């Protein structure tokens, strides 16, 4: 796993990455399969349950890692550059993509 920009955040980052990866690997393939066989309502139910599970499993370590990395960004003056980039291009909604053929 890649290091954090601040060595003191690296152990927290690795713990968080491992938590996310194991959640994500269990999430992705069922989510893809659901898109073909479940109704929209059932898919939403799955997404809601998995979003809660992610928060339950990884929320605590995320809180600690986030605090550490935000301080590291600030110490390097990157917080302002990041804020500027967010203002220039918030990217708060998924970019529109070409219509896809159904598989």
């Amino acid at each position, binding site marked *: 796993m890649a290091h954090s920009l601040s060595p003191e955040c690296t152990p927290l980052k690795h713990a968080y990455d491992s938590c996310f990866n194991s959640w994500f690997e269990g999430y992705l393939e069922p989510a893809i399969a659901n898109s073909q066989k479940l109704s929209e309502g059932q898919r939403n139910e799955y997404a809601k349950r998995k979003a809660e599970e992610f928060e339950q499993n990884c929320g605590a370590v995320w809180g600690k890692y986030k605090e550490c990395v935000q301080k590291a960004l600030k110490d390097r003056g990157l917080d302002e550059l990041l804020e500027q980039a967010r203002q220039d291009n918030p990217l708060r909604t*998924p970019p529109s993509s070409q219509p896809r053929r159904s598989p």
Partner: protein
Amino acid sequence: MHFFSQTFKYDHPWSHVIIGMWHKYPNPHCTHVVTVDVVDRSVDPETGIVRTERVLGCKQKTPAWIVKLFGGSEDAFVREVSYIDPTAQTATITSVNLSLSQFATCLERIQYIPTSPCQTSFSQTAEIQARMAMWRSMADKMESWLVQRFEQNARLGKAGFSDVLRAMWETKQHEVAS
């Protein structure tokens, strides 16, 4: 303004490529990426779309004239925002430089889409633009340096990610087979 684009296919299912995305670095082909941090992440409880915002730290030799003129250093940081939509099976990754961004911007967009159950297309575009009113030949020179570096990194990224995917999934397939 300079443009760059390329498209190719990875011989792996979309889900393997998307899981592999989080294991791309550190990578012996891409030693210029030295740090990766998640600064924001959310899972949409309705759509199931995963949004991740990361800051990547890169170390790469910068020509002396750029360092002199713009006061940069060998450390450069990039903001990356990715959207993974498992229902539509699309992943879109947008990146922009944070360092030297008052002088020039490199806006990159990558998309991974399945083209068959075992192949995933990768398409990448980039727009590179000197930002401030600069002496024309200087702006051109700076843009072409950025383009060259981008093209070199794009080649390394492709080789590096191919290796990661091969290593990850061949080991797993081997385990299943044995």
